[in-house]
């Protein structure tokens, strides 16, 4: 019974956590679609140049992405390197953004540029005519007037291996201002600027997500602890004849207490492990498309099982102490 209760609680804890993570991921992806939380650009790039996506010829110092990852640790979800150039295309100066690696040969156009050029099927950015793969939805930013291609292609166009922008996407609940301050303090020799995607709203959404998750985790941990304490007590009460026998044959108080706590710990671990696996299954059932991502979150299941074992040990403590010291004679006579 104790293990079943622990398994149920663990399943709920794991399932909720994974579903919350899935929701957070979806929300993050939506927010990320608007833009990054922070941008790192070379020192000296002014506000109007940023607005016009004219980042000049200076690169970011080599290894900036790695140093940023070290400074921000798990608060950083993704650091996206970009090379932004200004090229003459169809008789106008157009920002060309190299980013990412997954796209095949071809270009994507910002909505305003596509309209200005008459929705072309191909475009020559200096490598001969290339197919226009996609016209991006309007964002209301200067990126609506840009051409997008892969980072490798942009570096080839520039003729050098460099990047001049790093876009940072943060984890839910991490205030961009705080991350910015940490980066400033790390003296990275770069300029940290807000991502311009409505940081306040972003922070509010992410903060609400994180607070909701912490609240759910806290309530579940409390329920789990109380449930384990009650079941440890009931379990020990059921086994008090055995405990009394142990004491009669010479087990000292510490041995008796450790026996009770070890049993509760093992039950907690077993129940937690079964429950955590059930929680993963529940989360996958709730959102089958998220299965690969949820399976990758296996440390959550491991943590929940470990937490169950720890709570099992701690919650059995008071019962173990009482049973190790109370008069065992009535228990010996009642069986």
């Amino acid at each position, binding site marked *: 019974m104790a293990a079943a209760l622990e398994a149920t609680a663990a399943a709920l804890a794991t399932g909720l956590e994974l579903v919350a993570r899935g929701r957070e991921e979806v929300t993050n992806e939506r927010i990320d679609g608007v833009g990054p939380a922070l941008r790192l650009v070379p020192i000296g790039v002014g506000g109007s140049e940023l607005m016009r996506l004219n980042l000049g010829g200076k690169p970011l110092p080599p290894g900036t992405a790695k140093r940023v990852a070290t400074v921000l640790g798990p608060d950083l979800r993704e650091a996206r390197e970009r090379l932004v150039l200004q090229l003459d295309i169809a008789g106008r100066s157009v920002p060309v953004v190299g980013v990412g690696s997954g796209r095949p040969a071809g270009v994507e156009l910002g909505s305003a540029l596509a309209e200005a050029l008459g929705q072309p099927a191909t475009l020559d950015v200096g490598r001969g005519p290339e197919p226009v793969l996609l016209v991006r939805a309007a964002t209301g930013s200067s990126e609506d007037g840009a051409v997008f291609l892969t980072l490798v292609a942009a570096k080839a166009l520039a003729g050098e291996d460099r990047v001049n922008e790093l876009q940072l996407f943060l984890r839910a609940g991490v205030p961009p201002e705080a991350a910015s301050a940490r980066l400033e303090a790390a003296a990275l020799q770069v300029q940290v600027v807000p991502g311009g995607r409505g940081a306040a709203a972003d922070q509010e959404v992410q903060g609400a997500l994180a607070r909701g998750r912490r609240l759910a985790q806290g309530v579940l941990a409390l329920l789990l602890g109380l449930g384990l304490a009650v079941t440890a007590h009931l379990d020990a009460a059921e086994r008090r*004849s*055995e405990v*009394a*026998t*142990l*004491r*009669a*044959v*010479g*087990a*000292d*108080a*510490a*041995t008796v207490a450790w026996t009770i706590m070890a049993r509760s710990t093992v039950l907690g671990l077993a129940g937690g492990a079964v429950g955590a696996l059930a929680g993963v299954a529940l989360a996958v059932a709730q959102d089958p498309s998220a299965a690969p991502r949820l399976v990758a979150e296996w440390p959550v299941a491991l943590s929940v099982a470990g937490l169950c074992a720890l709570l099992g040990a701690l919650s059995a403590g008071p019962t173990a102490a009482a049973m190790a*010291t109370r*008069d*065992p*004679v009535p228990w*010996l*006579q009642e*069986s």
Partner: protein
Amino acid sequence: MIEVNEVCRTFRAPGGGVVQALDAVSLTIRQGELLAVVGASGSGKSTLLFTVGGLSAPTTGRVVIDGHSVYDLDQGQRAALRRTSVGFVFQTFNLVPYLTTLENVMLPSLLAGRTRAEAEATAVRLLERLGLAARLRHRPAQLSVGERQRAGIARSLVNAPGVILADEPTGNLDPESAAQVMRLFHQLNEEGQTIVIVTHDLDLAEQAPRVVRLRSGVIAEDRPGLRRLAS
């Protein structure tokens, strides 16, 4: 030798008030003695047994086993005394249900710090002697009641204690098993084992060399048994 000096034991009654289970009981149990304690229900027999065995502290008075004043020892020392000097046998056998017969008998030995091999060798020897050689790997639920009690007796003997304290050891047994168990106690006593048996069965009690009768927590009679068991 065990000395019980002016031992009183009171309990709070569930509805209030106090129950005097033992009232200034004094008793000397000599090495190698077989003593039967008899009396009506509630006369204080089991209370006396568990008090002698270091499991239930008297309200006043002293219990001395082999020169140690039992209740002047701390809990750890008292547990050690129970491991080495006392062996309990219970009416309801009190075997651990998920352990095998062999493991149940080994338990006090392991608690006393012996190696598994030593504990197993001693337990096997005892179980063979008590006719349970074929039951070593059986769990208590797979044994007859007589076999369970013999396993309980083997467990009480495994650390070669100075005294065996048996609380109604035949209370849950059929007459044949009860007679077997009593014969076993007599055999052990003939080999020099000190044994105290609490029983309400007067026929069995009278087979003991010495009978102590308790009445309302007071020793009302302390005399030789009327009928020694025919071996």
